[in-house]
């Protein structure tokens, strides 16, 4: 069996269980459902709320550098701390945090493979105690924007071709049948997808227990849609979080070098006057 390109970015539940009191490790829960942490979490874990702590709450943007520094300082994180991220929904928002930490240059960030679900399913210890940590004075690197795609780059990619676009939303969002995931607010004016995008829902990268599929399975999944790393890849979804999960898979598990996350995603593109939109199922991959 082939190994992930960067196996060091994953830890399993046993590893976490044996590092609960490791001062060099900070365990952070990042959930879609921001109240899940209060129902019981991994002993020693802190929580970051994606709605308020992992974004700019005034203008639409990722967390500004100074706010990231404040968050990490408050969390007792140093530049050499090993940050273990985990969360519900197969680490969906944990991957969002991972992407931002990489943008700001934190070296040792890892995901708990299987996330909160696997921890619960294995009947492991939970607590409602919220730990406190000695604050630090964290200094982040300047943002590495090579990990991020902005609207002009995506427009250029559509115009020129040669860049693979991976739409990781549900098939119904891709075709335009619905404007947002079932039960969630509709936040765009038009349904459909960016012309030429491949439809590979993000969750296909995971097993039923929440862990990531094997290298071979992932290679077949993305390679079967023409995503083979021979050219640049841009992943997108509705607001950029699901696509950060796919970005993680492509960049760290498959080892593709030129992968960016378009966090403007469909809530930007689907509201843009004059932006080209395709509806319906994706066309077959050309040989």
């Amino acid at each position: 069996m082939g190994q992930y390109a960067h196996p060091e970015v994953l830890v399993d539940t046993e590893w976490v269980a044996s590092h609960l009191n490791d001062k060099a490790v900070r365990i952070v829960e990042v959930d879609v459902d921001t109240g899940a942490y209060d129902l019981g979490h991994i002993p020693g874990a802190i929580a970051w709320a994606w709605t308020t702590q992992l974004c700019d709450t005034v203008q639409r943007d990722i967390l500004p550098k100074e706010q990231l520094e404040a968050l990490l300082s408050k969390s007792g994180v140093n530049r050499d701390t090993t940050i273990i991220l985990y969360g519900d929904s197969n680490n969906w928002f944990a991957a969002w945090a991972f992407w931002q930490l990489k943008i700001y240059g934190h070296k040792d960030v890892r995901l708990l493979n299987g996330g909160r679900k696997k921890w619960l399913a294995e009947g492991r210890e939970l607590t409602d105690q919220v730990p406190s940590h000695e604050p630090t004075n964290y200094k982040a690197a300047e943002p590495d924007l090579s990990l991020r795609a902005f609207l002009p780059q995506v427009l250029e990619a559509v115009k020129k071709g040669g860049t693979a676009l991976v739409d990781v939303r549900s098939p119904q969002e891709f075709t335009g049948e619905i404007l947002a995931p079932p039960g969630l607010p509709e936040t765009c004016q038009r349904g459909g997808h960016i012309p030429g995008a491949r439809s590979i829902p993000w969750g296909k990268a995971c097993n039923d227990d929440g862990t990531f599929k094997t290298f071979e399975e992932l290679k077949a999944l993305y390679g079967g849609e023409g995503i083979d790393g021979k050219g640049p890849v841009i992943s997108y979804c509705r607001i950029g979080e699901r696509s950060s999960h796919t970005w993680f898979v492509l960049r760290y598990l498959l080892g593709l070098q030129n992968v960016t996350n378009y966090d403007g995603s469909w809530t930007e593109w689907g509201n843009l006057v004059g932006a080209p939109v395709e509806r319906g199922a994706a066309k077959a991959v050309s040989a």
Partner: protein
Amino acid sequence: MTGEAAASASGRSEQFSERQIELNGWPVRLTSYRVGEKYVCQADNISPGACLARFSATTPEEAEAQAISKARHMLGKTKRRDV
């Protein structure tokens, strides 16, 4: 989205289970478990997997009924369009 039973959330997770149902024509995953004296049930839309509702209660039946009721209400707002 949530409802809480006032009880400790410390201990091991127990009785973890998942099952799939259909609400308003959409597949929904119900994830249930117990921690301490709390029974938790979460309903999520399988694609993409976002939490629609999550309740904790003193019985598993109550937690599930509340989660299903809220999830059904939220899913009722989603409009399907002709493609």
